[in-house]
C-alpha cells in the first residue's frame, strides 16, 4: 500500500493537490461516456492555445467544401495541395510582412489538432492553416494571437511603488500602468 500511497501522493510530480478527485473510484458500474458530440459544427475556425512557454496547441475545423472551393478558384489540382499548419511571430510588426515570420510549419493532412513547438517564450504568436502547393501557401484560417508565458525572470529591474487606489486612479485617468507583454490590443484576424 505504501507504493500506492506515494504514487497517489506524487501524481502531479510533487504535490497532492485535489487528491480527493484522484481516489480509487468505482471499479465497477462505470457510467457510460455520455452522448456523442458533433464531429463538425459546420464552421471555419482555428484556435491556438499556449500550454507552456515552449508549447502551443492548435485545433481547427474547416467547413465542408472550403478547401475544394479555394483550390478550384486557384486552378490547383487537389492532389498537389497539402494541408499545412504554420506558427508565426511578429504579426502586426511593421518590420515583417503582413503575416509575420514563420516559426514552425507542419503538414497536418488528416489531423484536426496539433501541438506546436519552437516559439520563443514570452513572445506573441499566431497560427495559420492553409494549403501548401510547392512553395506556395494559400491561407484558409488564421488564429487569434496568443502570448506565451515568459518562463524566466524579467530583465526589467526598475521598481515602481503604488497603492491599489493609485493604480486604479491612474487607470481611470487613462494613464496606463506598466503593461505586460501579454497585453495587446485585439486585432481579430479570423
Amino acid at each position: 500500500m505504501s507504493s500506492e500511497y506515494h504514487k497517489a501522493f506524487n501524481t502531479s510530480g510533487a504535490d497532492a493537490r485535489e487528491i480527493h478527485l484522484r481516489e480509487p473510484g468505482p471499479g465497477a458500474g462505470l457510467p457510460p461516456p455520455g452522448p456523442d458530440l458533433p464531429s463538425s459544427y459546420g464552421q471555419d475556425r482555428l484556435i491556438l492555445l499556449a500550454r507552456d512557454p515552449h508549447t502551443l496547441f492548435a485545433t481547427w475545423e474547416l467547413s465542408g467544401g472550403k478547401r475544394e472551393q479555394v483550390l478550384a478558384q486557384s486552378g490547383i489540382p487537389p492532389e498537389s495541395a497539402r494541408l499545412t499548419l504554420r506558427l508565426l511571430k511578429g504579426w502586426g510588426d511593421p518590420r515583417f510582412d503582413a503575416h509575420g515570420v514563420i516559426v514552425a510549419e507542419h503538414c497536418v493532412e488528416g489531423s484536426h489538432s496539433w501541438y506546436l513547438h519552437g516559439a520563443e517564450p514570452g513572445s506573441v504568436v499566431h497560427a495559420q492553416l492553409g494549403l501548401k502547393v510547392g512553395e506556395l501557401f494559400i491561407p484558409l484560417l488564421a488564429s487569434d494571437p496568443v502570448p506565451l508565458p515568459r518562463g524566466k525572470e524579467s530583465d526589467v529591474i526598475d521598481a515602481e511603488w503604488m497603492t491599489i487606489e493609485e493604480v486604479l486612479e491612474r487607470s481611470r485617468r487613462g494613464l496606463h500602468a506598466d503593461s505586460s507583454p501579454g497585453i495587446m490590443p485585439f486585432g481579430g484576424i479570423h
Partner: protein
Amino acid sequence: MLHGYLCIVLHAHLPFVRHPEQPHTLEEDWLYEAITETYIPLLQLMEGWERDNIPYRITLSLTPPLLAMLEDELLCYRYREHLANLEELVAKELIRTKDEPRVHRVAQMYAERLQKTVEAWDRYRGRLVPAFRYFQEHGGLEILASAATHGYLPLMIHTPEMARAQIAIGCEAYRRAFGRNPVGFWLPECGYLPGQDRWLADEGIKYTFVDSHGILHASSRPRYGLYAPLISSAGVAVFGRDGESSKQVWSADEGYPGDFDYREFFRDIGYDLPWEYIQPHLKHGIRANTGIKYHRITGKTVDKDIYDPDRAAAKAYLHASNFIFNRERQIEWLHSHMDRPPIVVAPYDAELFGHWWFEGPLFLDGVVRRAAETPVVNLITPSDYLAMHPRNQQAEPSQSSWGLKGYHEVWLEGSNDWIYRHLYTAADRLVKLVRSLPDHADNLLRRATNQAARELLLAQSSDWAFIMKTGTMVPYAQRRTREHIHNFLRLDEMVRQHRVDPWWLESRERATTLFPWLDASVYYKSEAPVA
C-alpha cells in the same frame, strides 16, 4: 519581536456532483466525506480557537459549486442519511472489534468523532454556509470568492465573455452567501493570465494569489521576491505562493502527511472486510471507502500496523511546532533582508486537511496555537497585510498556474484537449444567443437561455479536464463534459427555433440547482479579448 507574517490559505472546492436521478453515487460521497472529514472539523477548530481566545487568522475559499451543494436541501438530507449509515456501521464495529484492544481503541475514536460530527451538524441545523459566515463576521476567518464553476480561466483567452462571467457569477454567488462584497478571489488552479485581472478589479476584488513563478517572472523583478505582493496593472494585489512552506506539507518525500504514524488512507474496511458484513453499508453495491481505516502508514510495506490515535495526534502537534519553528527561521532571515515585514503565503487544498491527511486538522490546530505563542510570526490575512502595507511594487505577474510544470499542461494535453473545440464553439454560440434574445422574449425563452448558460458553466469546470489527465474516474468526467455540452447545444437550438420543451427544461433546472438567480445577460457585456 515581530518579524513577519504567515498567511494560511485553504482552498475548499468540489465540482457540482449532485445526482438526484440516482439514490446513491460515489461522486456525492466526495461531498459527504469532505463535510465529515474537513468542513465540519474546520468549524470545530474555529469554535475551539474562539473558546480559548486564540487570535487566529485563516483565509478560506469556498467555491460556488461547493456553496451550492452545502445549501442544497436534497444533498443535506442525503448527508444526514449518510451519517446514519455510518453510525450503524460504527456501532457494529465497536462490537466486532471488542476482543482486539488496539483495533477497538480506533473504533472508539471513530465513534467519538462521529458523535461530535452529528452534534455539530445538528447544531448548525445542517447549514454550514451560515456557520462559516458567522466566523467571518465574528471571528478570524476571511472567506474568498472564486470562479463560478472553477473554470480554468487562462484557457478561455479567446472568449473573454466566458472568463469575465466566471468571475462575475462567482462574486455574485459570494454576495448571496455571505452578505457582503468579496475582497479576495481564488483563481481556479491559481491560473493567471495577464489582463484577466481587470475583471477582478471590476468586481471590487483587492487581491488574489498566483504560484511562485507568477511573481518571480513578473514584468519587472519583484524586489521582495515572494514575500510582498505585486500590484497588477488593473489594480489587484497579487500574492505569491511560498514554495518552502508548501513543500513541507505537500511534498511526497519531505511532507508531514507521509509520516509513518499517520493513518493509512488506502486501508479502508470498505475493501478489507468480508462482503456480507460490509455490503449493507455500501449503498452503491460495490466496494468503496467508508472512512473507517484501522492502520497507520507504517512504512514502505504492505504489512500495516494498527493505527494509534494518541501517537498520531502527538505527531501532528509535533509537526505543527516544527512548521512554525521553520517559519520563524525563514521569516527572521527574510526580515534581515527586507525593510518591511515579509508575508509568507501558504495555500493548500482544504480537503487535504482531514480527508486525505486524517490528522491535518490537528496539525492546523497546532499551527494556529503555536503561532499565537511566538513573538516572531503573526498569522495574517491578505486584507490585514494590505491595510498595513498598502504601497507595493507595481508589476504584472506572469502567466502561470499551480499545476504540474507550472502552466496549463494539466488541463491541456492528449487526454483532454478534445474538449476545447466544443467549449469554444458553445461559448461563441452562447454569446450570440444572449445578444440575439429579443427584449420582449418570454419567460420560457429566458429560462432556456439561462439554463444554456448554466450547462456551459458546468462543462467549463476545470475538474473534468483534471480528472481526465490524472486517469481516475475518467468516464465520469467525460460523461459530465459531454452531457453538459450536449444539453447546451439542445437548448441553443430550442431558443433559436423558439421551440422550448418546458418539461425537459424544468428537469434540467431541477437537476442543476446552482445559481437559480443566474441571468445570462451577464454574457452580453462587450469586452475586448485578452490576447
